[in-house]
């Protein structure tokens, strides 16, 4: 469980996040949605401590994350996996070396055990046999999957994904969503996902929070999305004329 409590973030004069309070549950896919520039990435970085909030607190279970020293933060991060918006794979290392990096750094596994663990997560993301490819030699979608593999290789308790399926075709996007959902349920992970993909919202939105210009304007789950009369939510979801027409047609019938 992770909780943000009255979190604010400004860059100089620019107030990017205003008074955000929200709880992310374990074993659930928690989605943060919002338009480009709404502050999703900044919020995720606050949650993992890559940026410090201007005001407010962040709790991991009952530990105040914002008050911890460097060593304690690192201790918590042993349990954290993160998929970056741009994957952030180490480009001079192969797929296998990327995924093995956390194992090399933090475990005393034998090379055989590491190899097995790498193969296991590679299989989990449907990338068997790509061990020796460099990030520049695989597609964007494959990079995302390697990123996911790397972030789950140490069996995290918390998983953060910044737009896991942006820039992917709908089918691959769906696969990645399913993958994240399954991993979350299987290991009872507290998963937080940034997205503006409506398919993800309707597909894996156990808990959904809408950010609008740095403010939290709506929370709910995927079955509450359609019925909501929150204007900001409606205008976010029915941004495309195609969906608007579908909705209007449905309303006219009904």
């Amino acid at each position, binding site marked *: 469980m992770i909780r943000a409590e009255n979190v604010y973030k400004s860059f100089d004069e620019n107030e990017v996040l205003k008074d955000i309070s929200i709880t992310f549950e374990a074993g659930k896919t928690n989605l943060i949605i919002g338009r480009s520039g709404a502050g999703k990435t900044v919020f995720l*970085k606050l949650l*993992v401590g*890559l940026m410090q909030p201007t005001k407010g607190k962040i709790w991991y279970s009952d530990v105040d994350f914002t008050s911890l020293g*460097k060593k304690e933060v*690192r*201790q918590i*991060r*042993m349990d*954290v*996996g*993160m998929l*970056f918006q*741009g994957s*952030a794979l*180490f*480009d001079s290392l192969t797929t296998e070396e990327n995924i093995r*990096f*956390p194992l*090399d*750094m*933090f475990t005393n596994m034998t090379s055989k055990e590491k190899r097995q663990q790498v193969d296991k997560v590679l299989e989990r993301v449907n990338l068997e046999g790509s061990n020796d490819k460099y990030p520049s030699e695989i597609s964007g979608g494959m990079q995302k999957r390697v990123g996911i593999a790397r*972030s789950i290789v*140490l069996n995290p308790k918390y998983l*953060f994904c910044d737009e896991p399926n942006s820039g992917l075709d709908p089918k691959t996007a769906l696969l990645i969503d399913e993958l994240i959902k399954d991993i979350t349920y299987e290991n009872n992970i507290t998963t937080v996902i940034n997205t503006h993909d409506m398919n993800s919202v309707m597909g894996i939105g156990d808990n959904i929070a809408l950010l609008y210009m740095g403010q939290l304007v709506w929370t709910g789950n995927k079955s509450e999305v359609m019925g909501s009369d929150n204007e900001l939510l409606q205008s976010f979801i029915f941004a495309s004329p195609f969906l608007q027409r579908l909705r209007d047609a449905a309303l006219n019938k009904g």
Partner: protein
Amino acid sequence: MDFILRAPKRLLFHFGRYLLLMRNAFNRPEKWSMYWKEILRQMDDIGIGSIVIVVLISVFMGAVAAIQFIYQLDGQLIPKYYIGYIVRDLAIIESAPTITCLVLAGKVGSNMAAEIGGMRQKEHIDAMEIMGVNTAGYLIMPKVVAALVVIPMLVVFSAFVAILGGYIASVGSGELTGGEYLRGTRSFFLPNNVNMMFVKSLVFAFLLTTVSCYKGYFVKGGSVELGEASTQAVVYSNILILLADYIIAVILTG
């Protein structure tokens, strides 16, 4: 009034941040084997990668010094073999440590700043932080250690090559025989000068790696800023090397 205080304020800010970074860099490694691997890689990079340029520069340094002194001492009542002695001490005290390190700041320093800066911009550093890695330690300490081992070796090598360069030039000029030159290189030898050479090369190696890593580690923005950081790494390293050269000279010859 404000603008007068700005420069010292900035200097203090950078100095403080540099000290903090160094404190984090020289923490206990998470895993010695990973650091060790990185140290070896860096030693190879710095050492093998710089031999050719060190040889080139040193040969000419020695040769130019010899020709210059032959010219200056021409017609004076100073024995010819003094040329060997002068070239040797010039190489050991000044040109081998200082010029080699100035050149290495341009080659190794800019490279380190660009490598670390690129990792910062591509979020590789963030990705490592999320895993729980002490990035200041893992990215900086092996480079500094490798430099402290390899650069003094390069400096010794440079001194030998410079003396050889002096030999070639002297004998080539026909002004003195090889025997005379060698007699010079074996006269008036002060072991303390060799100590000074080692002190200088250690101090310079530390300065050029840490300053360059500092510049790279805190880079922001994009490729323009990366280029600037890499240039500044060289400029600041060079200034600090010359400043340290002066201070060491005052202290160790006083």
